C-alpha cells in the first residue's frame, strides 16, 4: 500500500509542474509527429492538424501501390505546401520488421520523434463467434500486437527529461464500451484502452492517453453503414468530424493537458450519453 501511495505522489508531482512556454508566449507544440494509418480519414485529419500547428509529420499507410499511397502523397503535398516537412513511411504495423523500418525512417527524416499517434486499424466485420482462426489472429496481430510493436519501436526516440513534450495517443472508438453489430474491433479497442492506462504508469516521462471517437463520417463509415442497421437514421448533428478528434489529440499533446494521464477522452457529441433518443 505504501508503495502504491508513493507511486501516486510521484505522478502528482510530475503532473503539476509548470509547462514550458515558448518565447512568443504560446505553448510548446510538438514538432515531430508520426501518425499510423494516416493516408485518409481520422489519421489524415490528425496529421493535417499537427502540420497546421507547425509540426513535421510522418505519414504511415499499409499497402504500397494502391489508393492509400495516392492519398498519402496528396496529404504530404498539402502539408509541404504549408511549409512543413511530410514524409511517407509505408508499412504493415503487424510485422515487427516493418515497424522497425517505419520508426527508423521516420526518426531519421524528422530528426527524432515527439508524438506517436496510434490510429491504424484493420478488422473483419462479422460477429465474434463467426471469426475464423485466421481472422481472429489477424485482428489481434494488427490492432493489439501491432500497436504495441509501434510503442516499443518508438520508445528510443521518445526520450524526454521534462515529461511534458513526448506523447503517445491511441485512437479508440465507442466500440470499446458498447456493442456494435459485427464489430470485433471493439474488443481490441477496449484492450488498447487498458494498455494506455498501463503505459501511462510505466512510461513516466511520456504522456499516454486515448481519444475515443463516436460516429465519424470517414471511409470507415462506408463499412459501418453496411453492417449496422439503422445507422443512417442517427441525426446528422451526432456525427463527429475527423477534425474534432484531431483537435482533442492536439490538446492532449499540449501543456494544457499536463494533468491528464492514461485517460480515454470521448469525442462523440454526446451520442453515448443517452440510452434512447427520439427519431
Amino acid at each position, binding site marked *: 500500500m505504501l508503495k502504491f501511495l508513493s507511486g501516486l505522489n510521484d505522478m502528482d508531482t510530475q503532473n503539476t509542474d509548470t509547462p514550458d512556454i515558448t518565447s512568443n508566449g504560446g505553448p510548446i507544440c510538438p514538432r515531430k509527429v508520426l501518425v499510423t494509418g494516416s493516408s485518409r480519414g481520422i489519421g489524415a485529419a490528425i496529421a493535417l492538424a499537427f502540420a497546421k500547428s507547425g509540426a513535421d509529420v510522418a505519414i504511415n499507410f499499409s*499497402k504500397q501501390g*494502391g*489508393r*492509400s499511397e*495516392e492519398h498519402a502523397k496528396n496529404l504530404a503535398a498539402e502539408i509541404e505546401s504549408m511549409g512543413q516537412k511530410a514524409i511517407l513511411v509505408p508499412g504493415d504495423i503487424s510485422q515487427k520488421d516493418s515497424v522497425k523500418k517505419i520508426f527508423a525512417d521516420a526518426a531519421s527524416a524528422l530528426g527524432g520523434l515527439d508524438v506517436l499517434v496510434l490510429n491504424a486499424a484493420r478488422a473483419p*466485420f*462479422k460477429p465474434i463467434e*463467426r471469426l*475464423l*482462426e*485466421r481472422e481472429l489472429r489477424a485482428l489481434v496481430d494488427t490492432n493489439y500486437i501491432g500497436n504495441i510493436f509501434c510503442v516499443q519501436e518508438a520508445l528510443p526516440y521518445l526520450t524526454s527529461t521534462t515529461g511534458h513534450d513526448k506523447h503517445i495517443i491511441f485512437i479508440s472508438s465507442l466500440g470499446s464500451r458498447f456493442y456494435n453489430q459485427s464489430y470485433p474491433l471493439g474488443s481490441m479497442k477496449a484492450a488498447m484502452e487498458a494498455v494506455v492506462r498501463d503505459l501511462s504508469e510505466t512510461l513516466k516521462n511520456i504522456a499516454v492517453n486515448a481519444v475515443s471517437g463516436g460516429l465519424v463520417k470517414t*471511409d*470507415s463509415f*462506408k*463499412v459501418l*453503414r*453496411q*453492417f449496422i442497421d439503422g445507422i443512417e437514421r442517427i441525426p446528422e448533428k451526432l456525427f463527429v468530424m475527423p477534425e474534432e478528434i484531431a483537435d482533442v489529440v492536439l490538446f492532449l499533446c499540449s501543456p494544457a493537458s499536463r494533468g491528464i494521464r492514461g485517460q480515454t477522452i470521448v469525442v462523440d457529441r454526446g451520442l453515448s450519453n443517452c440510452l434512447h433518443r427520439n427519431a
Partner: protein
Amino acid sequence: MRQALISDDMVIDELKKAAAETLAIDVATIKTDSSLVKDLGAESLDFLDINYRIEQTFSIKMARHFIIEHIEEMFGEGTAIDSDGRLTEKAVKLMRIRLDAAVEGSALEALKPGMDMDALPAMITIRSMAGSIMDILDTLPENCPECDKSAWKTDNDTRIVCRECGAEADYKNGDDLIKEWLQKTQDEHKIV
C-alpha cells in the same frame, strides 16, 4: 421478368457510374472487363462504397462477404485457404464454376490452386460484379408479396415497385444467394 424492367446493360451502366463516383474517375474510362483493383485502383473499402451505391440505386442488399469466406464458413476453416494464405483445390474448382461465365477466359487461367488469396480481388471485374447484381435482381418474385398481384413496374428506372400497392420489390440478399449456390453446386459436383 426482371430483364424486361431492368436490362443487363442498365445494370452494367449503373455499376460503372457507381465505380466512377467512388473512385473519382471518368466513367468513360471504365470498360466492362476492367478489373476494379488492377485497372481502376479500387481498394477493399472502395468495394463497400460501390456496393452501397448499388444498394441505393436498385434497393437490393449486396453480399457482405466474398465467396471464399462463405466456403470456409460452410465447409470449415482451411477448405478454401491453406495456412499460407493460398487457395485450395476445392476453392479453385468452386470459383471456376462460379466465374466461368463472368470472367474472361484468360483471367480465369490465373485461378489455380496455390494462388495467393490477396490476388483474388484483382479478378473482380465490372462484368463479374454486375453478374452478382443481376443474380439478386433475378430473385424478383412473380407476384408482389404484399398484394399478390403481378404488376411490377420501375420507379426512377432502377427501383422495381408494385403498380397495384406501391410495395418495393423484395429480393434475396447477396450472401444468402452465394450460400444457396455453394450448397447446390457442392451437392451437384461433390467437390472435395
